[in-house]
């Protein structure tokens, strides 16, 4: 059994605004708006560049933000991916 690989949902149109380090995401397909944490911004931008598994995304996010890979970060990324999938922003893709 292999891990799920996550990528941007087909046809997803995302727009961003950033003020003083705070990021707001607009998902044009649903017309919903979300405020993202620094971890969420980094992870989503990494997924937009290239599909990744949970574990890979944790590693890449930690590297980008220069933070440790630890259990809280893994939980954050797991929850984030679950939420983004539910919102129709990402989907499982072929590895």
């Amino acid at each position, binding site marked *: 059994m292999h891990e799920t690989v996550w990528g941007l949902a087909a046809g997803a*149109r995302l727009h961003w*605004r*950033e*003020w*003083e380090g705070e*990021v707001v995401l*607009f998902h*044009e397909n649903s017309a919903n*708006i979300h*405020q993202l944490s620094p971890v969420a911004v980094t992870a989503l931008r990494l997924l937009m560049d290239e599909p990744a598994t949970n574990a890979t995304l944790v590693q890449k996010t930690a590297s980008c933000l220069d933070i440790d890979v630890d259990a809280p970060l893994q939980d954050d990324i797991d929850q984030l991916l679950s939420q983004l999938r539910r919102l129709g922003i990402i989907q499982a893709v072929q590895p």
Partner: protein
Amino acid sequence: MIVSDLSTAGVSRRLGKGQLFLRTGPFISRIQTSIASIQSGIALLYAGFPVYDDAPFADFHVALERPPNLRRWFRPQVTFKFDGWAPFKPLPLNQAFAMFEWGMNWCVVNHAHRYLVLHAAVVERNGCAMIMPAPPGSGKSTLCAALVSSGWRLLSDELAVISLATAGLVPLPRPVGLKNQSIHVIHQRYPDATIGKAAHDTTKGTVAHMQPPAESIARQQEEARPAWVLFPKYTPGHALELQRYSKAQSLLKLVENAFNFTVLGKQAFDCLGQVIDDSDCFTLEYSSLDEAVSQLNALEIPAPCA
């Protein structure tokens, strides 16, 4: 021609025949009613607004009527109609003018999708607009009435109308809705203010409307640049507290207060993003209107609007 150029009988006659075309901001409304309290309310509170006997186009065709049912004899009511259709249940006749005002808001909110429309008051000074979104009970309209009675220009008491093309604030200066104690407060502070007849026992309590300042009406075609987004909150006994507020959070709150954000989609997101780019954002908690007005008069104008 403005409404006050007509006699009260002239206003009533035109309204009775549906021949009164009233300009408020960018909209022309054709209004028909034989209800005396609305006729006198329009003659008084819209006295300075442009009016036409005929117009090639009206944005909204509205009528306020007494429904022809048995209630008309023992508990008279009023119905608001838009293009001959009644979007709301009738209200007691003593609330007729308030229903007219609420109905006019409904027309803009549901049909003016060439603009982004927010639930917010908007006032202006030196060409710079302050957008004040706030939930009911936060003292938004009272603060708005105090500001426009202290030299700020009224763009709108209830609906912020934003141009999608320019992100500028489009004036829609209609009578300022006052509720409950704020009617007395504004009457006491500004005895020269013209306030219409109060309607009691509405869903919002006692409601009355204040005539907009003449200058606000005269300049109702003049857009203003966004400069401040202010979230006011009236708290009795609270010391004045003005605090900077996160721009990202401000954007989320503006979206919460937008009527047609999902209709307009990315255009609305871009437009509100521009508004937030250009604005300084604050929360204001206050109990003294004098202190609040004085504090807002002293706000520095942000660079994009300067």
